[in-house]
């Protein structure tokens, strides 16, 4: 009985969902950006080794196969990577940190105050707010720099930190894995285990980010969480 139902569903909802092919967390997330130099793979934000600082990590262009694919991968000089910080709670960026490559160096600008009229989908590079630069690291050499404000910078290839049984997920969402679902740990497989990404990492003293607003979870009745910035990353291409 269940098998009949199972196959029946494959002709219905299952087929619809089968079109939802998926690579996460944001890796190759839409047809127009997949496998391009703007494609964001992941975003992390966490307390640094210095507890008064926050680390912002953008990973891109994944998954990169180790070897020549990784060695040849480059940040696009026509693409700016932006860390957007909302410190007022309206989900419009109040501060932006920008990173863009020129030759073998990544240049960083900000945190710049964003005029609300200029927030959103288009940006200019805030040249007047130059804050640092770092040579692009290679597979063999890691470069980091720290500026006078205590902001530390990195750009280059790294191992992908993201772990996920992506193949089984596609089976799950298509219905092909129903009704079992995901596999037990002994059978599950981490798709991203042996891939690299291009990473931009900034560690910034919290004092440079302003006061954090009340946590947004309060808006849906979840109280007691600490004040928190709302932070997201964007990639923008020169037009």
């Amino acid at each position, binding site marked *: 009985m269940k098998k009949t139902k199972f196959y029946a569903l494959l002709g219905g909802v299952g087929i619809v969902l089968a079109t939802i092919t998926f690579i996460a967390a944001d890796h190759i997330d839409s047809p127009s950006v997949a496998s391009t130099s703007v494609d964001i793979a992941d975003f*992390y934000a966490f307390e640094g080794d210095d507890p008064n600082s926050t680390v912002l*990590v953008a990973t891109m262009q994944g998954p*990169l196969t180790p070897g020549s694919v990784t060695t040849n991968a480059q940040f696009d000089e026509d693409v700016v990577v932006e860390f957007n910080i909302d410190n007022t709670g309206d989900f419009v960026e109040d501060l932006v940190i920008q990173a863009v490559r020129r030759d073998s*160096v990544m*240049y960083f600008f900000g945190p710049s105050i964003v005029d609300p009229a200029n927030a959103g989908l288009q940006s200019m590079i805030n040249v007047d707010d130059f804050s640092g630069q770092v040579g692009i690291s290679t597979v063999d050499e890691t470069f980091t720099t720290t500026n006078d404000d205590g902001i530390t910078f990195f750009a280059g290839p790294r*191992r992908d930190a993201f772990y996920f*049984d992506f193949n089984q997920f596609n089976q799950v969402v298509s219905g092909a894995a129903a009704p079992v679902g995901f596999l037990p740990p002994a059978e599950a497989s981490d798709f991203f285990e042996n891939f690299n990404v291009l990473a931009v990492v900034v560690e910034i003293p919290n004092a440079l980010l302003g006061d954090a607003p009340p946590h947004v979870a309060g808006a849906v009745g979840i109280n007691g969480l600490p004040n928190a910035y709302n932070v997201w*990353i964007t990639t923008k291409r020169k037009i």
Partner: protein
Amino acid sequence: MNIRYIKLSALVFCIGLLFAQCADDDDNGNVIEAATCDDGIQNGDEEGIDCGGTACPPCFDGLDFSGTYRQEDIMGRPGINTVFSGTDMVKNNFNTTMVSDREVFQPIFQTTLEAYHDVYGSALGVELDYESNILGLDAATFTTVLAQFDALQVAPEGPTTYFNGTVALTGRNLTDDVIDISLTLMFGGESGTRFDGNNGTPQLTSDGVGPGNRNFSLPFPYLESPLN
């Protein structure tokens, strides 16, 4: 030729070298140890005199940062666009929309969330709907949070974590199992264990993989060196 003349010649020669080096616009840089950013010459991996490279202020001369840049990709929380947008067109639209302009995506996300449940309801031969999750959020509220509050909430007063069993939504660590957390919020119901593979239920709250042999205890830049 006396000693003084030789010294003078040597000095002139050296100054000549100095200017020759100053005029050298070869930005490949001849790497010299102990280069500094205030020694008046281009050395180390500097790209000009006391500028550029890994240590010195930038050489803006000749570098063009002009122009307008337009958004092509965006990411706040992990997996949002890829899991909830459904169609290619919606995914593309999501990536070119501001976070604060996402109302239109909420009903789409809710439909997708319900559709995932329908797949397993059909497979199990039962009516299956999303149930409020461990955060107490119903489908409409949950998908509103996902669509319209789509950023990492980052607490400057730690601890920062996507969810560590006690604290939620204060950041995202490299170690955080964001997939299991997300699956639990989607399929775990109020207990978090609604579909955890036990008692004949499907396993929908964990993908079964962890960080494996990755090292998440490294100093800045915190990520491991690339695999070779």
